[in-house]
């Protein structure tokens, strides 16, 4: 029967298979090989959490260690992409992305447009997101909303090992810059993943669970939180439909709108800060295009508008929980005008 591997292994396998298929694919990032200046034990690290471990042994110098200088190596990756390579650059935590916003927002995202379609930028920037790792305010944010805001970037947020492999392969093959967000608490999650290569197209939401009573759209790790809430609700006879958009740019509007047309109720679960996040974007979409279908106000479950706390107790409270999603969903179901 199909083999099970972890989310982390699925990412490693996607990079390895694409490097095997296409010699223009290269990988780079801090400690992606063995740490700067190391010799002998060159494959010791494979990135801060070991995602790229083993690639050096297979592909040698096509996987590179970079200095702790995000603007330099992200710029180098983008430049290499414009010149014909397909770099997969790892920028450890999305929280550090700020130092290279010009490279991403104003260069990579704009090249195709500024050069009238004559230039393409097939770069993938992999980065870790999410709270729950006890890593405090500067290593725990989600921030995909910032990148979703920028035209010219594609934003991918996988929630399962199967999706991680297929979406990363698609990201590498895509000719536009892709920001690939990996929730660090999902790395250990295991599931069936085909050994062969496969690509999942962008802009196609995954309906995780079907239901007629209420639609729950959730992103990244929140897909699992929503699923747990939906399973609990099912015990009370409430059937929630759970939708994972998988990519926020492009966004599969049709799947969300079709579901809301059926249920008339929408809850969005987004782990990121609550202002101008993907949740508010989806709420606005439904408010504008499906107002007539709605039987209750659209409700967003997200983190509070504060930095991610370092205290374990506060961090647990900060992250949307299945209990909170369930309670909010029940309020939406009980709403009457």
């Amino acid at each position, binding site marked *: *029967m*199909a083999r099970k591997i972890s989310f982390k292994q699925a990412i490693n396998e996607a990079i390895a298979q694409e490097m095997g298929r296409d010699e223009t694919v290269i990988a780079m990032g801090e400690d992606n090989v063995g740490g700067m200046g190391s010799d002998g034990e060159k494959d010791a690290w494979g990135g801060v959490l070991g995602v790229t471990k083993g690639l050096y042994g297979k592909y040698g110098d096509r996987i590179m260690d970079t200095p702790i200088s995000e603007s330099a190596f992200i710029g180098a990756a983008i430049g290499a992409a414009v010149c014909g390579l397909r770099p997969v650059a790892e920028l450890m935590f999305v929280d550090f992305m700020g130092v290279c916003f010009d490279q991403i927002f104003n260069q990579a995202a704009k090249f195709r447009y500024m050069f009238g379609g004559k230039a393409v930028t097939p770069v993938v920037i992999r980065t870790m997101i999410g709270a729950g790792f006890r890593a405090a305010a500067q290593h725990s944010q989600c921030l995909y909303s910032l990148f979703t805001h920028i035209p010219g970037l594609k934003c991918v947020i996988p929630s399962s090992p199967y999706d991680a492999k*297929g979406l990363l392969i698609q990201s590498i093959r895509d000719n536009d810059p892709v920001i690939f967000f990996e929730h660090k608490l999902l790395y250990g999650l295991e599931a069936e993943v085909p050994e*062969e*290569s*496969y690509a*999942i197209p962008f802009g*196609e939401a995954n309906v995780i669970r079907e239901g007629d009573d209420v639609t729950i759209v959730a992103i990244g790790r929140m897909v699992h939180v929503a699923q747990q809430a939906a399973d609990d609700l099912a015990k009370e006879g409430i059937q929630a439909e759970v939708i994972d958009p998988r990519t926020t740019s492009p966004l599969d509007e049709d799947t969300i709108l079709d579901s809301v047309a059926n249920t008339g109720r929408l809850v969005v679960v987004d782990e990121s800060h609550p202002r101008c996040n993907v949740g508010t974007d989806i709420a606005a979409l439904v408010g504008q295009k499906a107002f007539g279908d709605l039987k209750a106000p659209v409700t967003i479950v997200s983190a509070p508008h504060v930095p991610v706390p370092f205290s374990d107790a506060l961090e647990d409270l900060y992250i949307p929980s299945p209990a909170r999603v369930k309670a909010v969903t029940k309020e939406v179901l009980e709403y009457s005008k």
Partner: protein
Amino acid sequence: MSERIIPISMPKWGLSMQEGKVNRWLVSTGDPIQVETEVVEVESDKIAGVIEAAHAGLLRRQVAKEGDVLPVGALLGVITESEIAESEIEAFVNDFQSRFVPGKTEEDQAALAPEFVTVNGRRISYLRRGETGNPVLLIHGFGGDKNNWLFNHEALAATHTVYALDLPGHGDSDKNIDDPTFSGFAKVLLGFADALKLKEFHLVGHSFGGGISLSTALESPERIKSVTVLSSVGLGEEIDAEYLRGFAAANSRKELKDLVRRLFANEELVTRRLVDDLLRFKRLDGVRSALEAILSVLLEGDRQRIVLSHDIERLSMPIRTIWGEKDRIIPASHATAMGKGVHILPNAGHSVQMEAANEVNRLLSF
């Protein structure tokens, strides 16, 4: 265990089935039943099917309630001859339940695992069940795989050694196809039989696999003991070309679901899991070009390019044709081209071996 008390247990349909849901009982407690009476409808996460009685008697107890989700092998009900006392049945049920251990041992799982064999440099995946009798090869259709025989494989394995394989471009087999013609696939089948040292064998082919089976029989008639084709290509020109092209091109669940519904007379049989599994297959590298290569050979415009009816007259081995009366992909009227040995099954569509599994299994005697 008394042979006068016969348990009905949760079947295992296909490799991934671990548990099933009891949809509804089709006979009431105390009702008399005959062999082949449809007793209970069960649903796996992929598809629903009906369990038939293997013995005549009375349905004495519905142990499982409608809606129950139970592991493979679990006791669903009890059939007995009439004179058995209620207390004896009670004891039987208690004994069964106290012994029953759900889940398979690792050894059982390994025995169920598909294997690979290399044929002309290409890896072919197959599942073998059964130990006795002449070998039988089950050949799926366009876009299908060895799991298309989930309701048939085990039943046939009681009396034969049965191999269900994945054609090149399909399932877990390698996806490159260098010769997408019937005769190219026939060479793969013969190579497969050589690799497994099967000298003579029976062929059972569904749809595109039917055309391949007939072509294999024409290629090497001395090795083929009989051919059974189900809803087969190659017997007439009409075919739902829109379905075939749509299937090759579809890459979203919605598109695929609407298409796959056409395979069944009862569209309710198409579950999310069935569509999801097809989508996962379709996303694999090489699948789309493999399917398109097959279509380039299979179709001429919107019609079938190759009609074998005339050539088949040369064949002397037994040939049997089974068709779903409500086939929307290839009309059941094509079966008449075969003359004798034709079985048209009412209330079944193109996937006749799934939709009328019990009837098909009865017809498949060798």
